[in-house]
Structures are given as C-alpha cells and as structure tokens.
C-alpha cells in the first residue's frame, strides 16, 4: 500500500485547537511526551481528510467508511469511551503523569487490565455522556 499522505497544515491546526479545547473541557492534559500528542493529532487530521471525520488513529479499521456507516460516532474523537468513561486509549487525553483515566471503566475492560485503576484528578469535568455508560 502507498504511504498515506501527510494532512494539510490547516487540518492539523484545526485538530490541534479542538484537542486543546477538549483538554480544558474534560479536565485532562496532553501526554508528557509531546511526540505522542503530535502523532495522534496528525492521525486525526489524516482521517478527517480521508473520510470526513476525525476517527481515532489508534484503532485498525478494515474499512473506515463501513466503520462510520455501521457504528456512527463510536470512534470519532472524542470517542464514546472518552465521553462515557473519560478513557482515551490513544493517550491524547490523560492525567499529568501521562496515564489514561480508568477508574470509571468496567472491570473487564482492557484499559483496566493494562493500566490498573487510574483515578480521575478532575471528577467535576468531562464524561458528558456518563448517562450512557454501561
């Protein structure tokens, strides 16, 4: 497969602004390793240009159009997991220590298996879809 094209600077900047706003809204911060954030923002911008929506770049989709058609906004940033459980497996929205928040996840969720229980340092912010959390 040909190398994916780099997204345009304007799209990258748009995603960067969105991410900064969502850090504030959710009470999270960027990863201490700035390269992690940079990579994810590039991925979101690339997916926006490819399929019209900022699909999470930390998933594999055999067919991105089918993913959007069949599952709607599930993995559109900020994804359902972030809005319900404040968990970002892409490490875009994390604690100051660079950890994804896992305390609201179901115990059998892979995030709990990988990171254990990571407490939310700002429980008064984010989780705008908490009512939908199963």
């Amino acid at each position: 497969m040909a190398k994916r094209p780099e997204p345009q600077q304007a799209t990258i900047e748009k995603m960067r602004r969105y991410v900064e706003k969502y850090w504030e809204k959710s009470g999270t911060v960027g990863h201490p390793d700035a390269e992690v954030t940079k990579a994810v923002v590039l991925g979101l911008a690339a997916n926006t240009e490819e399929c019209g929506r900022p699909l999470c770049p930390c998933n594999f989709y055999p067919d991105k159009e089918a993913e959007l058609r069949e599952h709607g906004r599930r993995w559109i940033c900020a994804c359902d997991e972030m809005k319900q459980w404040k968990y970002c497996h892409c490490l875009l929205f994390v604690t100051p220590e660079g950890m994804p928040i896992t305390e609201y996840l179901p115990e059998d969720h892979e995030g709990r298996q990988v990171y254990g229980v990571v407490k939310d340092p700002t429980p008064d912010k984010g989780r705008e879809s908490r009512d939908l959390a199963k």
Partner: protein
Amino acid sequence: MASHNVFEFTDDNWDSEVAKSAVPVVVDFWAPWCGPCRALSPIIERIATQFAGRVKVGKLNVDDAQEVATKYGVTSIPRVFIFKGSDRPEKAFVGLTSESELVKSINTVLGA
C-alpha cells in the same frame, strides 16, 4: 529509526517470517499516527536487542498489512502478540504494555 534487530512483517512475509519461524516471534501491531504505538517503539527495540538470536522481534504496520491485521481481529493498537512455531499466538497484549511484562512473557515462552 528502527533498530537493525527489529524486523518488518508484512502480509507477504507473514507465513515465512512468523508462522513458520524456527524461533519465537514477537509482533508489534502498530500504525505511524498512533501515539501509544510510538511510546511502545523503544521498548520493542530494546527487547529486540536483548533477545537477539533467540527471539525474532518485529513490527507490523496495520495500515499496510491489512490482511494480517484483519485475520487476527486487531481493533485497538498497539497490540503485541508472541508466536512460537505456528500462526496461533501464545500470548497477546493490548495497549502500552510494560517492558517487564513483555520480558517475563518472552522468557516464559522460551522456557516452555
């Protein structure tokens, strides 16, 4: 830049380099614009150096090797599988797995 000990697995070389490998194989399923994949990368490189000659360690770009990624039901990445002489993984790890956890599992597979 990847270490010279780190292999690049693809749809085309999967059978010969992984499924039919004479030594255990560690495969890191990743993508270039995945943040935690980047964070895992230096761990994979250190493991490749540590186990050089005893274990084959490599990366598989899911954007390129879609056939293999689909076959193994890969969803979230990074994801690390350890194979030993077949195309069925002996161990599987999801997310940013720690170096100590990977080393422990590789040693278990080597000793089994």
